[in-house]
């Protein structure tokens, strides 16, 4: 085992034990030339980002004049608490806007999956939809 390895195992810096300072400064006679030759080089770095798709703007669906007598679907996406929140919304409509027909549905499948059958049903039978909860 050489001396450097032994000293490292002891937790001691070989440089310190040898009497050298932790940062060795250049000898004075080299100072001027060292300073001139260590001007930092400038470089260019490439952009690492990928290519995003263009965004197709989608116009929003036309709004209703009011909700009186309309059927509003309350769609539970499946996050915890969403169903209970929508139940409170349904109760609110019953008490405050009793002409609104609030219909509750839990979307089939996990939250991130489409439910084409439900969307079809809502389009055929509903006038508007409220979805909850996005987490």
């Amino acid at each position, binding site marked *: 085992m050489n001396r450097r390895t032994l000293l490292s195992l002891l937790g001691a810096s070989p440089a310190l034990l040898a009497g050298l300072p932790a940062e060795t400064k250049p000898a004075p006679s080299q100072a001027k030339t060292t300073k001139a030759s260590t001007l930092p080089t400038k470089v260019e770095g490439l952009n690492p980002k990928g290519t995003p798709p263009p965004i197709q703007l989608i116009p929003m669906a036309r709004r209703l004049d009011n909700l009186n007598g309309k059927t509003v679907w309350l769609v539970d996406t499946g996050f915890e608490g969403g169903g209970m929140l929508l139940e409170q919304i349904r109760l609110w409509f019953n008490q405050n806007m009793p002409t609104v027909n609030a219909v509750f549905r839990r979307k089939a499948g996990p939250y991130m999956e489409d439910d084409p059958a439900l969307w079809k049903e809502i389009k055929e039978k509903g006038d508007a939809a*409220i979805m909850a909860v996005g987490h």
Partner: protein
Amino acid sequence: MPTTPIVTRAFRELAVLNVAKRGMPHLRITFTPHPVAAKTPEQLHAYVEGNDPVSGKPMMKEIVDALTTPLSADEMKTGLVEVSVGPEKYGPDTARNLQQFYHDNGMTDFLPIVIPTEEEVDEMLKGTSHHPDEVVGKMAGGAYPPWSYTVKQVAINAVMAGCKPEYFPTILAIASSGTPSLMSSTNSFAYAAVINGPIRDKLNMNYGIGALGPFAQPNAAIGRAWTLVSRNLANGGIPGDTYMGSQGNNLNYNNLIMAENEAASPWVPLHVQKGFRAEENVVSLFRGLGIVPGQGARGTSTDTPKYEEQFSDLFSVFTGFFGGLVVADPLIAANLKGRGYDTKDKLIDWLYKNTTQTVKDYKSRDFAYGFDYPRALKGLEPYKTWYAMPDDAVIPRWPHRDDINVVVLGGQTNAFFQGGSLSYTVSVSIDKWT
């Protein structure tokens, strides 16, 4: 159909950014206080009767207005919007300043990078025969439109991670899978890549002592490149936008890179199980929650250990939503083979049959509620049957036997193992990208 979504306040930025990415930047979103989960009906009633915490307006008025107020001109716009990611190059500037620039603009993992100069990237491109402009794939770290990327764009990230050109085909293979190692979920997911084939030795990968630790450049740099690829090429890992992991996962720094110790294993390697020939170079990816050392599992103090029981004990505390990955030292594999588990399949069969839970315990887990119960409602098995069973019925920990995988690695200094709550996703040929 006029529709309005409700989102909790904690996800306001995520919601606003996501609807913009999907083409409806002016979607009328109503916000509630956070959280909605684990609240009583009375507490949720107060939410409904109270104000939207973002707009300050009464929540129900916000909802009714969202469905009835006439659309603005902006809300009716159509057309295509191009998205810019900035200039092709940064600088010229000192390496120190550029390093900080990359950090400050979220393009690193905040560890020092190799500045991706044109010269460095050209050198990296020598590691593959594929054209720099060839599209490798596309990736999204969440439910937003994926970004695409070329061979050269992957090379830039491989340089930043400190890779050598000979590592590049492996990184291209991972990138081609479209699997990010940074996912937007509030869970803080972990990712693993198992590498099989002669390339392990060609690159001097470590599959002996300290195989999962920081003891070999290819193991470290390949995993790190996967994270930078996920960050930059897929726009992943932006806290509050494309990353919502509540606590984060330290494994994301360079992921779990596992070079299987094929020579010391008595079983067929993972890639052969997945249908590849032994001489092919393959990377197999896993996604889950993390990995746990097996020391301390029941039975570890016995003179005649039954390792399969120790695996099962460790896995009994994992959610069955993700698969089980046994990472066994060759000493354990030799012991198991000697006791009759002469194939990985026999071990997997035993684990699937003997790692169980009650229906009551199963239903109490949030992954079951959020993912499996909706599947049960759709009639998918085994979820439909499980949810129909009584609470005291005993069912497997995992829905499918194929949810369990076994990898052998380690330096045989002791018969230890680790258990990953990790699901196999895909195996990709590295050879294709040489």
